């Protein structure tokens, strides 16, 4: 008797944009038995609650809403061999790639996979994680949870709102709440710059006269039952400056203070995590430290645009299909080392033998920069240089290194960002 109920060549954990693209790509690349396991009642992931537009400009060359973007991919997947289990939660992946999951409809299942693609996305950082002091009032919630209430359930989580954090979800929700008749009093950002896309600052705040307080944070929340008042202070670095307090009478605090890849299942399976991204350490084909286990999308590193999630996931799905069909990759490994100005890179490891023409390296810089140079070196020698007129932590950077240059590199390459 086998110790599993079903067998698939490729099992994709998560049916958001990453999982849909990975499964689609796995099918396109020769896998015949592909399964997507999705915990929600429908595929699409977080896109389903992102009813604003701005998705797909890179991939589809047109402007779509989140549900439209997800719908396109769901339709593409329908035309493939992939099976989908919805309302089914993956609880554990064993080292020999048995995926255990629970479902109201299908019961408890153990599914044997030849290759796995991790596409669990990310979660929002919470009040507790950033230690916002004050009363335990109702009316403090993450921007994404508020977005779900408004866009999916049809309920308003508040009337007078202060938003902490200028991440994209916070900015989008500032506009959404305003359009729904709420008053957004302030968006408060700890950094001296916004962490969101510039287009969102313009379209979500400036167009609605919502003030953005940079270098400020919330230093108190007051309200025994519901939020009644929020106090913000200017900060010197991370430290509030006494005497700079501003009070807002409000009933709601929305938090958009960062996203964290959801890797609890990956960690328990034994996947090595990069403390900088809090996602898996990956090779050029998105394989993790576990052979046959791949990862893509926000579970690897938090992306700015879904189009890039799609691109990454198409590579991951293809590699998973190839692995399931028997392809093995050997050869030497080049470590990508981050130097000042570079917060992290994806991939962290590159095998030149597996590169056809060139490899794309994604990263984020540590601060807002004007004219800058991205310098790639190996063993002290220059490999490549890239110029940028503007760089910001809110926007993902990409550099492309040709195989011919990689072949000349030693066992590591270093990437540094400097002012030009």
């Amino acid at each position: 008797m086998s110790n599993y109920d079903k067998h698939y060549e490729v099992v994709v954990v998560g049916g958001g944009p990453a999982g849909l693209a990975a499964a689609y790509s796995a099918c396109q690349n020769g896998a015949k038995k592909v399964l997507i396991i999705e915990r929600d009642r429908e595929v699409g992931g977080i896109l389903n609650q992102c009813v604003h537009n701005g998705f797909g400009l890179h991939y589809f060359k047109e402007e779509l809403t989140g549900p439209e973007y997800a719908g396109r991919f769901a339709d593409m997947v329908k035309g493939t061999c992939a099976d989908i289990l919805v309302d089914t939660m993956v609880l554990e992946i064993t080292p020999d790639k048995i995926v255990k999951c629970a479902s109201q409809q299908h019961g408890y299942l153990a599914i044997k996979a030849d290759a796995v693609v991790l596409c669990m996305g990310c979660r929002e950082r919470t009040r507790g994680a950033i230690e916002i002091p004050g009363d335990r009032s109702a009316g403090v919630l993450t921007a994404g949870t508020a977005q779900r209430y408004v866009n999916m359930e049809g309920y308003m989580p508040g009337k007078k709102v202060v938003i902490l954090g200028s991440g994209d979800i916070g900015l989008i929700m500032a506009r959404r709440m305003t359009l729904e008749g709420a008053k957004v009093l302030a968006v408060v950002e700890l950094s001296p710059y916004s962490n969101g896309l510039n287009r969102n600052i313009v379209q979500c705040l400036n167009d609605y006269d919502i003030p953005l307080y940079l270098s400020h944070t919330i230093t108190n929340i007051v309200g025994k039952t519901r939020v009644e008042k929020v106090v913000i202070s200017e900060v010197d670095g991370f430290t509030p400056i006494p005497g700079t307090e501003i009070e807002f009478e409000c009933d709601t605090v929305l938090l958009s203070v960062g996203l964290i890849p959801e890797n609890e299942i990956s960690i328990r399976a034994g996947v090595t995590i990069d403390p900088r991204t809090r996602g898996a350490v990956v090779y050029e084909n998105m394989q993790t430290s576990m052979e046959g286990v791949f990862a893509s999308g926000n579970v690897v590193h938090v992306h700015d645009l879904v189009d890039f999630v799609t691109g990454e996931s198409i590579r991951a799905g293809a590699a998973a299909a190839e692995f399931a069909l028997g392809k093995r990759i050997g050869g030497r490994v080049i470590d990508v080392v981050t130097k000042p100005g570079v917060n992290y890179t994806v991939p962290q490891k590159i095998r030149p033998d597996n590169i056809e023409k060139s490899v794309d390296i994604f990263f984020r810089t540590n601060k807002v920069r004007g004219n800058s140079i991205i310098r790639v070196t190996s063993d002290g020698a220059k490999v490549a240089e890239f110029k940028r007129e503007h760089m910001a932590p809110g926007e993902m950077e990409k550099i492309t290194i040709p195989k011919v240059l990689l072949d000349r590199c030693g066992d590591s390459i270093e990437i540094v960002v400097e002012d030009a």
Partner: protein
Amino acid sequence: MYDVLIIGCGIVGSAVAYELSKYQLSVGILEKYNDVANGATKANSAILHAGYDPHPGTDMARLNTLGIKLAKEICEKLDVERRECPSFVLAFSEEEMKTVQTLYERGIANGVNVRILNGDEVREIEPEISKEVVGALYSEDSAIVDPWGYAIAMAEVAVTNGVVLHRENKVRAIKKVGDIFRVSTNRDVYEARYIINAAGANAPQINAMVGDTTLQPRNLSGQYYVLDKAEGKRVNSVIFCCPNKDGKGVLVSPTVHGNMIVGPDAFEVFDSETVATDAVTLPALKPKAHRSVPGINFREIIHEYAGVRPNTQFDEFYIKELETCPHFIALAGIKSPGLSAAPAIALDAIKLLKKAGLNMTKKVNYVDSRRVVRFRKMNDEQRRALIARNPLYGRIICRCESVTEGEIVDAINRPIVPFSVDAIKRRCNTGMGRCQGGFCGPRVHEILARELGMSPIDIMMDENKTFILTGRTKEDKKK
């Protein structure tokens, strides 16, 4: 008319209700909140103390050591999460070793299994403890417990056995007319022949309503950090510092839910409902905890909370039938180790009731068991069988804690119906994990509204007026 009316349904009120429910008596409970276990019982260190702290010969010593023995039985019978967990009191100097010696002697006198270890012996058992530690008191008699789960379990069994729980009833006045107490609340007037004051931090005010103004409340708040399960296995014991005048110092402890807690500090607050955390004082916990366990990764903080200790001017508990008011039993000033002592305090309360003349006969039949489904604690085969029996157990609602819809529906159908998202949290652990309810909050909300037949707008986060939603969206209003 009740034979006995208990004021307050925290850990002490629940324990008394549970014991009294075994007797042929009519018993009522008045609770000011909309749920039980919502005061100090939900915000403390969650430790069943071994019993080496209280001075030998005191009621506190007797009740603590008996209480933890009773807790073991009760938690097994009522399916409460409790885990035996050794404890250390660390000494960083020879001076502190003197305190350890004192505690050792108290422990021996109190009948507690205690040992004194040197620094190397300490680190052999708990390698994460600081190299600066020169020695420690060590006991294997301590345990950790789900404090609110413990109170909820006892209260539920009490209700099953016929005790009547009146929630959202804040006592405003107590009058004695002949042999009958008339207790006025914000909602109603209740009559009883005997009263048990188990009002926690508000017990002094309740005593004052019948003329005993002995107690001066000292509302001493304590703040804590909760860390992610990634830190939950760093230590496998409760790690105290040497006690000082404000309490037992900053401790580091695992929780039965698999997290780590760090805390508390101590500062006086205006009232027992002031459970805010403070940006200036809270971070001071970190260096104190690092002194004991240098490896704690505070990047894994997921939550902060504060609780108010029901302290008074006395070191001892204030447990007695009031001289000024016969048939009124005060269980007041129940600060630490109150959670440990609670079931023993309940037995004392019964003795006091008997002594005061209440005729007490045990029921022939009463329920003294309770079982709770916990999906997260099951193995593959148990989960498979469970979902086959009821598919609702296959639907995971809280991802972080692996809580199923079946468990939430179970909780709603138990004898004390939870009305809020946090009441579900206290019964099922939904929202206690790293996303703090970000994902499961709206789903729990929806299930509560559906099962209770209420509008989502009327479902509270916790207490009355803790509205989660303020109305419908424009589009939904049109519909």
